[in-house]
């Protein structure tokens, strides 16, 4: 009876998680959705505690874990800067991955607690029956995917947080190494099944190889491909949870795993499409490292028009429509508040101000939207690529701040270019393009020079994104 009721409660919690995601279809319903999510989690935890009825020692362990973990989590959530959201999400993914490995290890060592094996009285002896084959496959998959998620996310975190260079690290023969490790993992699962899960080193070897492959998979991927990587790791953490959901025969875990898995997969797909790259080519890595060297070395400086903050202020004040195009540079310079201030001043002058966001702007899906929301920019002034792209031709000014490759017209005209075919924001159609950039030297992530810099209607504003915007505000 208890088991049936518990299963129903887990189902309720799974449905609440679906509603939590459903709420995100619009900002108005999203806050309620998040509450559904919290309710679902509370039900799942409460049900489990009721079901296992912990003894005193267990209560001690559980309460200590939840108080310490929850305290750390709540502190981080309150204090984290919005610009650091990509690395925070990567760090959170790594925790889910590691938790999955730990749960799989526990299931391997104490299978009877998970009802995947049982102790039987045979004569005078208590004999442990072997773990069911199916459960062994599920838990080893959970451990392997969890381990890949863990180390992969740690590397992604280090790259996003700047602890590690964002440049791709390319090992020679890396594809062969990865395939060999992959085969070794499969072989270990087979060995584990043949030994009925009684040999401990099988499990640990599997975990260590999976940890290693997580590192090897992510190090060759460069900084600006991180939106894809973060989404992909999001997806993996879901599949790891789902695999363990089968081991535990737990509906809440299975539903959640499937939701998170498909969510991450869809986000990866959207990101890849926005860069016109195949998922496989992102994962194989090394973008921009080989091609970029040649593109950058043809460095004859071409003529461009440079302007000052006062020029920019003058042009914008006399405009009737300004579209702001933010990119990663705005995030790294923490310029979002200055940008909002500038937009406010312009609006007072009667200028129509809108924001245009490319799907891969920033380091994770939706990164720019969060930053603008943080700076109190109303979300109905912020538009996605498809919704605003044909408005550039009617705009007087496109203010590009910290974006580069996503505005490069070469993506439409030069089939030789590595970014050819990538959908771009048509900023060059605006009457004037004000392009804020630190210096003329650097190229964008793709290692391609931006044709836009040398157009007659482009004025380069060279300097730090935040300082430049602040000066424009003064000029207004």
């Amino acid at each position: 009876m208890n088991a049936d009721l518990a299963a129903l409660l887990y189902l309720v919690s799974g449905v609440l998680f679906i509603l939590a995601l459903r709420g995100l279809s619009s900002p108005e319903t999203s806050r309620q959705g998040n509450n559904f999510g919290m309710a679902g989690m509370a039900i799942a935890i409460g049900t489990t505690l009721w079901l296992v009825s912990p003894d005193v020692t267990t209560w001690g362990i559980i309460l200590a874990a939840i108080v310490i973990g929850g305290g750390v989590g709540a502190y981080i959530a309150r204090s984290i800067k919005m610009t650091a959201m990509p690395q925070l999400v990567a760090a959170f993914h790594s925790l889910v991955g590691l938790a999955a490995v730990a749960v799989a290890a526990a299931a391997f060592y104490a299978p009877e607690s998970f009802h995947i094996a049982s102790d039987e009285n045979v004569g005078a002896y208590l004999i442990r029956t072997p773990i069911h084959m199916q459960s062994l496959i599920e838990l080893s998959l959970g451990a392997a995917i969890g381990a890949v998620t863990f180390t992969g996310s740690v590397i992604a975190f280090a790259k996003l947080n700047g602890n590690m260079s964002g440049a791709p690290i390319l090992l020679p023969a890396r594809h062969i190494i990865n395939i060999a490790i992959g085969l070794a993992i499969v072989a270990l699962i087979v060995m584990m099944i043949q030994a009925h899960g009684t040999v401990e080193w099988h499990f640990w070897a599997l975990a260590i190889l999976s940890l290693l492959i997580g590192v090897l998979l992510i190090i060759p991927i460069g900084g600006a491909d991180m939106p894809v990587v973060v989404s992909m790791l999001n997806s993996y953490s879901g599949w790891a949870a789902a695999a363990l959901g089968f081991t535990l025969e737990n509906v809440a875990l299975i539903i959640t795993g499937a939701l998170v898995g498909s969510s991450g997969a869809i986000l990866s797909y959207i990101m890849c499409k926005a860069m016109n790259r195949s998922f496989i080519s992102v994962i194989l890595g090394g973008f921009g490292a080989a091609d970029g060297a040649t593109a950058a070395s043809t460095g004859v400086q071409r003529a461009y028009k440079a302007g000052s903050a006062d020029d920019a202020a003058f042009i914008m004040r006399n405009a009737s429509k300004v579209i702001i195009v933010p990119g990663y540079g705005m995030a790294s310079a923490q310029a979002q508040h200055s940008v909002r201030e500038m937009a406010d001043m312009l609006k007072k002058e009667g200028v129509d101000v809108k924001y245009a966001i490319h799907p891969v702007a920033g380091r994770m899906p939706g990164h720019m939207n969060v930053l603008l929301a943080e700076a109190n920019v109303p979300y109905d002034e912020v538009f996605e690529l498809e919704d605003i792209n044909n408005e550039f031709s009617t705009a007087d000014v496109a203010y590009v701040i910290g974006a580069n490759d996503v505005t490069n017209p070469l993506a439409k005209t030069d089939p030789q270019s590595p970014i050819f075919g990538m959908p771009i924001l048509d900023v060059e159609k605006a009457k004037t393009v004000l392009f804020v950039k630190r210096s003329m030297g650097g190229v964008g992530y793709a290692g391609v020079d931006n044709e836009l810099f040398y157009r007659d209607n482009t004025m380069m504003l060279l300097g730090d994104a935040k300082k430049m915007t602040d000066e424009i505000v003064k000029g207004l």
Partner: protein
Amino acid sequence: MEAVDPFIFYLAIFVLAIFVGYYVVWSVTPALHTPLMAVTNAISSVIIVGALIAAAASAMTEGGWVAKGAGGLAAGLAAVNIFGGFLVTQRMLAMYKKKEKK
């Protein structure tokens, strides 16, 4: 008729949930993709269910303490994610505001 392995039922739930996820996630507005990642991250910490079961493993059995330790560790990690994930999502969502009517 022979009984169907319960695994098949779980598999059915899994497959259907993937489809539900597919349609639900496509309807998420791109402006909320960052909160989407944060909240999926928080809900995937429902893996804490497994951690609690592990922590409650009998200390008398062989490997019991390994399971308890691993369970405690996993519960702690998942708790970071649950509190961190939901609270940071809440914080982000509170920032999305509409234009003030004048």
